[in-house]
């Protein structure tokens, strides 16, 4: 199977590199001089783009003020462009260290599993997450005795979030306020309990607890999200992930169906020592850990990120964390110490650090998807978030201090994980207007 994956993976990657089956938006064919050259974004190629296509650069590669990037990693379409080399499969540009499998979401709301050591890339982008351990046992199978049922029937007959048949549990209330609960033995810490839920029948409230029903929180768009991180009420079409968070010892986690006869499908019950839910982890009889994503740029890629002059664009998906008081790094220049590089710093702002200190700062809306562009060169650093007002630092020393290669994507040396998805990273080897760059698709 591993061999088959290794053979078919590259073929699929090649197809996606030139854009085809995984296009989210309606694809258009970019043609020039009567030759079909490839399939790109839904936006029509400009005459300038068509001209460049003739020189061998696909139409989907971002341009800014006519400049081509040195790197354009379009993770959400599983394609990348490397100046001087051409198209690449994104995984070939990354070194991934992760001692476990990891699940990652797709825009159609399903999740798939990625092998240890493989970057988790879907049409929502590249996932980078800290480690987590799911202490909820039998996370997919509530028919097991680890779950205590009261006026609730359970059947392992539902398709799960991975579309696998008979992998998730159908809960049916045989009386009002039916419950299914599991007691965990854990010291007092911040815990998040999350579970995927899809309504089968009925319209009554479905509730969630992590304190043995001391508080029942009704599942709604306020505490349930889809795979894009958008608040979504439970429904009969797709799973949504609902969660509650509290600081407590020995949580008792579970679900309550308020109305007799109502039924829901549930999958991946997860209790973790985090203040937000991270990708789902399957368990049976013991706790299971997902290792953190250690993702570094290969030497080829690192050499294309200039340390003196460049403009970087980060197109990021929504994240489940808010102002949680910790660093979340986009790109780390340094491999040790406390100085990251480009990242979001605690305090509700996103910053650029040149290796000496934080030089720019912009207010950031907690959890929201965003585009962030930063240009450094000469004596200035200028950054723009979503095309907004430029944050300027006028005494840039001309080089990113203490640079150590390879660059790390989405974390520092072993901390400050991004905990979300990178849709696209583009690096131009020149100083450009960050406002217009952050408006690029």
């Amino acid at each position, binding site marked *: 199977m*591993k061999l088959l*994956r*290794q*053979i078919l*993976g*590259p*073929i699929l*990657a*090649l197809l996606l*590199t030139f854009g085809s089956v995984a296009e989210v938006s309606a694809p258009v064919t970019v043609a020039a001089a009567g030759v079909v050259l490839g399939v790109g974004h839904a936006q029509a190629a400009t005459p300038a783009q068509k001209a460049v296509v003739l020189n061998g650069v696909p139409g989907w590669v971002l341009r800014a003020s006519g400049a081509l990037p040195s790197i354009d990693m379009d993770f959400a379409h599983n394609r990348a462009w490397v100046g001087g*080399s051409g*198209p*690449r*499969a994104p*995984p*070939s540009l990354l*070194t991934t*260290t*992760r*001692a*476990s*499998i*990891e699940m990652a979401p797709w825009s159609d709301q399903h999740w798939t*599993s990625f*092998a*240890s*050591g*493989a970057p988790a890339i879907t049409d929502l982008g590249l996932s980078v997450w*800290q*480690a987590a*351990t*799911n202490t909820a046992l039998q996370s997919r199978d509530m028919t097991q*005795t*680890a779950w*205590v049922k*009261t006026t609730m029937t359970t059947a392992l007959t539902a398709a799960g979030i991975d579309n696998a048949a008979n992998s998730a549990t159908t809960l049916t209330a045989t009386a009002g306020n039916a419950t299914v609960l599991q*007691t965990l033995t854990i010291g007092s810490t911040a815990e998040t309990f999350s579970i995927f839920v899809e309504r089968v029948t009925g319209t009554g409230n479905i509730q969630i607890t992590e304190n043995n029903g001391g508080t029942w929180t009704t599942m709604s768009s306020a505490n349930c999200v889809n795979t894009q991180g958008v608040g979504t009420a439970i429904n009969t079409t797709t799973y949504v992930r609902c969660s509650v968070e509290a600081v407590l010892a020995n949580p008792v986690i579970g679900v309550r169906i308020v109305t007799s006869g109502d039924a829901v499908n549930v999958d991946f019950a997860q209790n973790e020592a985090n203040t937000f839910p991270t990708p789902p*982890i*399957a368990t049976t009889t*013991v*706790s*299971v*850990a*997902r*290792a*953190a*994503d*250690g993702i570094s740029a290969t030497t080829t890629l690192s050499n294309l990120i200039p340390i003196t002059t460049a403009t970087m664009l980060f197109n990021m998906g929504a994240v489940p964390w808010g102002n949680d008081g910790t660093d979340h790094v986009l790109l780390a220049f340094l491999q*040790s*110490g*406390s100085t990251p590089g480009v990242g979001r710093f605690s305090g509700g702002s996103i910053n650029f650090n040149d290796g000496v200190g934080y030089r720019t700062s912009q207010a950031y809306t907690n959890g929201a998807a965003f585009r962030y562009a930063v240009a450094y060169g000469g004596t200035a650093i200028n950054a723009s978030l979503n095309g907004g007002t430029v944050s300027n630092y006028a005494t840039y020393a001309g080089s990113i201090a203490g640079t150590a290669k390879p660059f790390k994507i989405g974390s520092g*040396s*072993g*901390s400050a994980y991004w905990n979300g998805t990178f849709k696209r990273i583009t690096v131009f080897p020149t100083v450009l207007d960050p406002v217009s760059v952050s408006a690029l698709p």
Partner: protein
Amino acid sequence: MTKHVRSVLFSLVIGMALLGLMPPALADQYDVVLKFTDKATAIADATAALQTFTDPQGAKQWLNQNVVELTVWRNSQDTTIPGIFWANTVVTHHPLAGYFVMISLDHVVPALLNHAAVQLVVDRDMMNARQPGAVLKSTVGNVVLQDLRFSPVFAGMNPPWGNFN
């Protein structure tokens, strides 16, 4: 699959390899369980310390990309308490003494394999496939191995503990 299709696919794969379009091949994962007196001793160990990083406060921490702290117990030593009213029977595990840690890498490190603290080394991919030779090293025999339980395990591990052959 026709000979022609096979030939085209083979050429395509070779061509992509030459062009650098091939994602890196996935190597087998090796799980190494080590036992130390305590965490401080483990982190101070020269070989184990290769899997640590220094946090912003200057303290060494395990690299959580490939290390997890373990609780280890013997299944046969579990005790049970009958449930009260609606609750099911409560099972209590009795952790073995010592500090256990699992280091998991995509290659064999001889210094780690031959470390005095090593309790168990398995090739995860072979283990998951139930292939003979999956256990590269163990300080205990099969009977004890079948009785051992580890928590947590890394996602993607499917250890045959309890029915190990």
